């Protein structure tokens, strides 16, 4: 049940056709796992908190550095040296005190991933490397948890939504990896992509619109173009193909 205050706070989205009080109640019950409190995590978590998601579990093991501040807008100059999850939790709680924010300061690994995501309904991919994305994708498939992918580089970004058992997964589409690097990025790029991820999460929970399922969306900020690519489930995919592969 929504309180009177909540009904007033979210009135402008509750009035959306197909959203209503029922949609808002679904958001309030949802538990979202946000993997990373960097650029993508900042924008996606901010808008999910503002929209009234019930619980956000944010996982990151990094500390805030000065060079993060051009894009990781949950972290401010006074946070330099703090754990990112603590800094993120403080801002999100100020933005929306009704949202439960679980700040988990751990590195996501094969060994702890199941424990970290336990109890969450959805996974937002706000990572900064492909191996951890693949790990999240794999566990999302195994545990039948929708997975909302995003990634950025410079002025370029991409997003895709994975519904296990129904749509192409990250490994159907991406086959390789790239060396970990200090990548160039302008803050508006993760802002755009994180907001697209948050939009997908809200649509999924409320049950509105068409998801980015079997569709890879590429954003080119320099030329201000969005291009959509059709992707398909790969029957030989090591994560979601049949029979199960080596799961690398």
């Amino acid at each position: 049940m929504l309180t009177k205050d909540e009904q007033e706070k979210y009135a402008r989205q509750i009035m959306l056709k197909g959203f209503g009080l029922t949609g808002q109640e679904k958001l309030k019950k949802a538990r979202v796992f946000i993997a990373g409190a960097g650029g993508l995590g900042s924008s996606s978590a901010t808008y999910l908190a503002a929209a009234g998601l019930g619980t956000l579990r944010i996982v990151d093991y990094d500390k805030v550095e000065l060079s993060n501040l051009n894009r990781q807008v949950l972290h401010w100059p006074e946070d330099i040296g703090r754990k990112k999850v603590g800094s993120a939790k403080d801002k999100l709680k100020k933005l929306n005190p009704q949202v439960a924010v679980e700040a988990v300061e751990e590195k996501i690994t094969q060994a702890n991933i199941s424990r970290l995501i336990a109890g969450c309904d959805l996974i937002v991919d706000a990572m900064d490397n492909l191996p951890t994305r693949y790990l999240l994708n794999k566990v999302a498939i195994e545990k039948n948890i929708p997975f909302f992918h995003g990634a950025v580089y410079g002025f370029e970004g991409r997003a895709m939504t994975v519904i296990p058992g129904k749509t192409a997964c990250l490994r159907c589409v991406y086959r390789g990896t790239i060396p970990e690097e200090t990548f160039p990025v302008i803050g508006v790029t993760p802002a755009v992509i994180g907001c697209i991820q948050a939009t997908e999460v809200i649509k999924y929970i409320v049950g509105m619109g068409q998801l980015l399922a079997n569709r890879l969306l590429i954003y080119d900020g320099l030329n201000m173009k969005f291009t959509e690519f059709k992707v398909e489930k790969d029957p030989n995919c090591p994560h979601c193909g049949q029979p199960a592969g080596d799961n690398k």
Partner: protein
Amino acid sequence: MSITINISPSMHHLTDGQTTVKVEGDNVGQCIEELIRRFPGLKPRIFDNRGKLRKYIDIYVNKESSFPKELVQPVKDGDELHIMLLVAGG
């Protein structure tokens, strides 16, 4: 016979800033060969030192993935290729 290749934004510095390049070819491999003839700096980004397509390169023909045929996939006049580089930042 003209095929338009759209270059991933992170490779525009290797094509003198050109975002699209028109080439000719009967399949994806021939189109990329011509592209590399004109912009040799692209070669090490697209192929490894054994001449194999790098795993972080995705090629789309008319906005559909060309995997697993990739280089041998036939193309026809008016087709559009996208050469995309995986990105991983967050």
